[in-house]
């Protein structure tokens, strides 16, 4: 299949658009959820969508996207409310409340699902696909509903950007300013249910949790600023969505949800490794560089002392800075902590241990050269 044919393929167009919408909404809303340490709420809400999907189906009598989404949103909101009630009015902790709501509403969904199957309704086909998602089954009309939901959520985030930001980072201060913190938190939670609703068709209810969490975690590695993190998270979500959905559409028989989750996990792993400053590889490299700097300083001091024939030779701070072409103060302090150098006002001298270490380094370097 040539690229042009591929781009004109009806199914493929739908899939790509659906994946883009899903990535955008879950990336943006997931950022707020992860920052508010509510990652697992997404897990609970996505499982809780299942009874709503079934109820929507029973009421509408067919696999009509609008009523199914409304049902999912309703049961998601109900689940969020139940978590709140259980944590506030019983002695159960948040994790137990989440687990309870997740598992019992999923059980209810399973019961309803089998109830629908026993009704022997001809139009039930494809209801199972909401478990793991089936991107190829996306219709244009589904896309319109998904786009409307996404647009609504993104507009709300844009309008209430400052408020949401404050609620995420300093709810106490937001309350002191007289903001309706509880209302804002409720809006954020309900919007996660919206993201779940958009993801139903693409990822399915079981794996939607990762779609809320993973793009945000990946984006968080690259920037500490919300203004950067949110768009980046949306970009990761969209890229992963398109990758997974494409593979699923091309290779028939593979569920979309797992493929999207694997792609987004690749983004997370790459970000954890490579992100500037926070990345694990980056950290390893900078540790190496710091060690090199320390070695350079030690050998410089050692050589100076040798050249002057005075093992207690004192080198001035400015001289060291000039010699290495950079600020060396903090590195010297760290060496002093290790007991390798001693300080006399603006002058530094090697201790005996320092001379020994420097001699070792030089010996090793020569050994390697020859």
């Amino acid at each position, binding site marked *: 299949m040539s690229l042009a044919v591929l781009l004109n393929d009806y199914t493929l167009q739908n899939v790509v658009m659906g994946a883009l919408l899903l990535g955008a909404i879950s990336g943006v809303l997931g950022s707020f959820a992860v920052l508010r340490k509510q990652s697992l709420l997404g897990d609970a809400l996505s499982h809780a969508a299942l009874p709503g999907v079934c109820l929507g189906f029973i009421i509408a009598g067919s696999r009509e996207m609008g009523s199914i989404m409304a049902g999912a949103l309703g049961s998601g909101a109900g689940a969020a409310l139940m978590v709140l009630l259980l944590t506030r009015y019983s002695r159960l902790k948040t994790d137990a409340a989440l687990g309870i709501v*997740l598992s019992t509403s999923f059980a209810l969904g399973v019961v309803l699902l089998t109830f629908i199957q026993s009704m022997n309704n001809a139009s039930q086909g494809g209801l199972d696909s909401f478990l793991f998602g089936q991107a190829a089954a996306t219709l244009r009309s589904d896309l319109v509903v998904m786009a409307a939901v996404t647009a609504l959520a993104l507009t709300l985030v844009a309008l209430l950007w400052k408020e949401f930001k404050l609620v995420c980072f300093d709810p106490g201060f937001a309350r002191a300013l007289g903001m309706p913190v509880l209302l804002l938190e409720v809006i954020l939670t309900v919007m996660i249910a919206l993201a779940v609703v958009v993801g139903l068709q693409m990822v399915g209810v079981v794996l939607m*949790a990762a779609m*809320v969490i*993973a793009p945000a975690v990946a984006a968080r590695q690259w920037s500490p600023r919300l203004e950067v993190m949110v768009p980046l998270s949306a970009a990761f979500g969209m890229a992963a969505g398109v990758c997974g959905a494409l593979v699923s559409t091309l290779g028939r028989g593979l569920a979309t949800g797992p493929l999207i989750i694997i792609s987004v996990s690749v983004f997370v792993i790459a970000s954890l490794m490579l992100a500037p400053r926070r990345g694990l590889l980056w950290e390893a490299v900078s540790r190496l560089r710091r060690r090199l700097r320390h070695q350079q300083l030690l050998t410089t001091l050692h050589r100076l002392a040798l050249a002057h024939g005075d093992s207690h030779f004192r080198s001035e701070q400015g001289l060291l800075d000039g010699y290495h072409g950079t600020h060396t103060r903090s590195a010297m302090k760290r060496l002093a902590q290790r007991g390798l150098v001693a300080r006399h006002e603006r002058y530094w001298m090697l201790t005996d241990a320092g001379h020994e270490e420097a001699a070792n380094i030089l010996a090793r370097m020569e050994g390697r050269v020859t």
Partner: protein
Amino acid sequence: MLASLLGNPAVMIMTVGALVGIAATLVGTFLVLRGTSMLSDAISHSIVFGIVIVWLLTHQQSGPVQIVGAALTGILTVFLTELLVNSKRVKQDAAIGLVFPLLFSIGVLLLNLYAGNVHIDTHTVLLGEIGFVWLDTVTLGGYEVPQSLLSMGAMTLLNALFVGLLFKELKLATFDAALARALGFAPGVLFYALLLLTSGTAVAAFDAVGAVLFVAFVIVIPSTAYLLTDRLALMLAIGVAVSIASSICGYGLAVRLDVSIGGMMAAMTGVFLLLAFLFGPRYGLVAQARERRRQRHLNESRNLAVHLYNHEGEPEQGEENVARALREHLLWSHERSRRAILQALDAGHIQRQGELLQLTATGREVAREILEPGRR
């Protein structure tokens, strides 16, 4: 007798359901108390990966190898989660939500790719087939015993042994990990053992209830018990009772409505939780509301005593210490002042002298205790 029981599908299904609940409760109780119950959600999802891998390697669908192999995946999940948390890049809850979907996804894809002829399809992964447990039997001592009954029975026994033998240690490690460490126990090792058993139970229960419904048995049943009691041993006992009740009610309802048996059993645990949440003897909403009302009434009668005491013997006594003043000066409703006066009369705090409300010695003592506490 035994043969007819073993041959009876309904009895077998209910027994397996109850055993899933009991085995899950034994480990779940400690997870819920430690506040790490969502780990069981992660474990039960990611064992799908382990089950598929073990099947691909050994072509064994059940048995000890399957249970141990897949249970190790559960431990892998916990290990990876802790690795992420320890890298300080990801918070605990997000880390859980990152690891298990990935393992679960890989498991489901492998199923998609290779499992055309296995009994586990993606549908069973989620829901299990407890309705068919009696079909898959092995011969044991001349009897046809369902495979699930055997593995669930073994896991229940193992969990019961673990909890029974290490009850004191588990109790200490759960409620005071620091003290347990100081006393030389290893709460970390104990916790990992607990998680290993949780994974093993999840694998054994997998055929019956699938990956997600298992979570209901691990979290919801112990939470129900937790709402009903403060004692650990009692909590375990209540958990066992709720498991059996959920299994029987769930089966009955499911057969009547012709819906998923496993799903109905799990949903029943939710019903029991809701009942405990509403009507629990001490922590239930109704009991709490009643307690609040009792407190309010107590406050009213104490308030009345103080009011009367303040104006006792003063010139305006005739105006203040009458029923009317409660409405006009304290702004109490007619209903409220009537209730307070009746209560105080019943308790012997006051007596009537015409219109005047007169404190008795007891009532004066009550007021004095509030106004000048500690003066005896």
